[in-house]
Each structure stands twice: as C-alpha cells, then as structure tokens.
C-alpha cells in the first residue's frame, strides 16, 4: 500500500513537472530547460538531505500529530479539487491546454542568458516547475516513509514513478494528456486524507478502536465520502443546468 500510494502521488506531480519542462524545452531551449531541471533536482536532494534526518529526531507522537495534520490538510485540498472537477464545478486538469498555455507564455517572453545558461527564462521556469512539484513528492516520501518505518520503499515508489513518467515523456515528446489525472488525484487525496487522519489522531494521544486495523476502514470510508460528495454535487449541477 505504501509503494502504491507514493507511486501514484509522485506520478501526478511528475506529469505536471514534465508538462512544464516539455513546454519550455520545445518552445525555448532544451539545454537550458534540462539545466534548470538538473539544478532543481540538486536543490531538492539538498533540501531532503537536510530535513530528512531532522525529521527522524522528532518524537513519533509529535511527528504523527504535525505530519499527520499537514497530510490531512493536503489531502482535503486534493479531494476538494478532485470532487469539484468530477462533479463539473471545476474544469478538468487538461495537460494539453496547460502545455499550450505554457508554450504561448514561453514564446512571448524575452530572450537572454546568464553565465553557462543560454536561456535564463527556460532555466528558471523549468527549475521552478520541477522544484515545486518535487517538494510535494519529497514531503510525501519523507512523511509516509518515516511513519511506516520504511523510507526505502517510499523512495523506490517515488523513483519508479518519476522514471516511468520521464521515460514515457521522452519517448512521446508530448504532454501526457491520456493520464487520468483527476482519477489519480482522487485516489491520492483519499490516501493522504485517510493516513493523515489516522496518524494525526494517534498523535493527539487518542486510540483508534482496533488499533492499526482502523486504517483499513478509514481508507474506504474517506473514498466513499468523496465519491458521495461528487455524486451529490454532480446531481445538483445537472438539476441546476436542466432547471
């Protein structure tokens, strides 16, 4: 479950980062876009290297409360967006449209380089895209890995997701429009909310009935809650449109 959760969460973020790098590389300068990607990966590694061991020093109860609370906030935000998209109240995340917008903005921007970077705009845009999406990946890997006492499996899940998305991206040289991003966001939002709820409640000192087995009830319960909300809002939307 740990591998699958981290894999899907990281795949969603990797698709978003890939869209930005592809748009910048295609419309501006591949070398600078890849330099920006590389610099972002180094900055990410340094951030995780600095923060990862520090997280291990925090007592487990406090860690579960803080990290579980953060995961709960993230998860609820993801679920909120996924439900709004699934019910037609928010546009579906269209990677092709996003790609087109990025290309238009990149083509309109001025040119110029700094030092070994030939196109500064391409460099900074790639850096920002990869670093921001990567930071979410790093947070998920560190928190899930630490809480489940299995950081290597979490790292493996993240690395596999990034490798698969990057591999497919390089092979097709196009935004991954066919990835069912909203469905994946729905699944990730459910997992983040469920695990965040489980860990943060334990962090407060409360005991779940059934102990660790409770998570097996929480995950489907959160999924049912989100699916129910989406169905209700979809019905309201259809009734509103018809009325």
């Amino acid at each position, binding site marked *: 479950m740990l591998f699958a959760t981290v894999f899907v969460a990281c795949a969603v973020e990797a698709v978003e980062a890939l869209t930005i790098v592809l748009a910048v590389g295609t419309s501006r300068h591949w070398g600078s876009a890849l330099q920006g990607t590389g610099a972002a990966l180094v900055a990410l590694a340094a951030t995780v290297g600095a923060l990862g061991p520090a997280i291990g020093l925090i007592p487990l109860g406090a860690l579960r*409360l803080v990290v579980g*609370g*953060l995961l*709960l*906030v*993230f998860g*609820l*935000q993801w*679920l*909120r*967006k996924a*439900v*709004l998209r699934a*019910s037609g*109240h*928010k546009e579906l995340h269209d990677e092709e449209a996003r790609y087109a917008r990025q290309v238009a903005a990149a083509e309109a921007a001025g040119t110029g380089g700094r030092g070994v970077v030939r196109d500064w705009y391409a460099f900074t845009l790639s850096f920002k895209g990869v670093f*921001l999406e990567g*930071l*979410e990946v790093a947070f998920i890997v560190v928190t899930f890995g630490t809480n489940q006492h299995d950081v290597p499996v979490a790292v493996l899940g993240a690395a596999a997701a990034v490798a698969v998305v990057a591999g497919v991206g390089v092979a097709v040289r196009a935004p991954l429009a066919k990835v069912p991003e909203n469905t994946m966001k729905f699944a990730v939002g459910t997992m983040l*909310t469920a695990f965040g*709820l489980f860990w*943060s*409640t334990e*962090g*407060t*000192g*409360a*005991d*779940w*009935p059934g102990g660790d087995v409770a998570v097996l009830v*929480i995950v489907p*319960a*959160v999924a049912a*809650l*989100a699916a129910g*909300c989406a169905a209700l*809002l979809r019905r*309201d*939307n259809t009734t509103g449109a018809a009325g």
Partner: protein
Amino acid sequence: MRRLRAFGAFWYDFVVGDDWRIALGVVLALGATAALVAAGVNAWWLPPAAVVALLALSLHRAVRR
C-alpha cells in the same frame, strides 16, 4: 522585501492551499482532540467528524460562488 513576501506566499500556498478554513479547521479539531484526551476522553471520533464537516462546508462554499 519582495522576495520575502514571495517566499511567504509560496509556503502559504504550499501548506494552506485554496481554502484556509480547511487548515484552520484541522488545527482546531486536532487541538480539541488533544485537550479531550488530556482530560481523559478517548476522542478518536472527533477528527473523522471534523473531516466530514470541513469537506462538506468547503465544497458547499465553492459551488455557491
């Protein structure tokens, strides 16, 4: 100053996201749970109830806009 503001805005967006009420609600619910536990009540039921309420209220506000 502009960079500091951008740094703050980035972390606000990263942690809090689109609806700050969700973050505030989670903090209040966990605080109340911890207080109840300290008073001897095993309030495991409070965070799940808060999740249901927070998601429903946030969605309700979003579609009414």
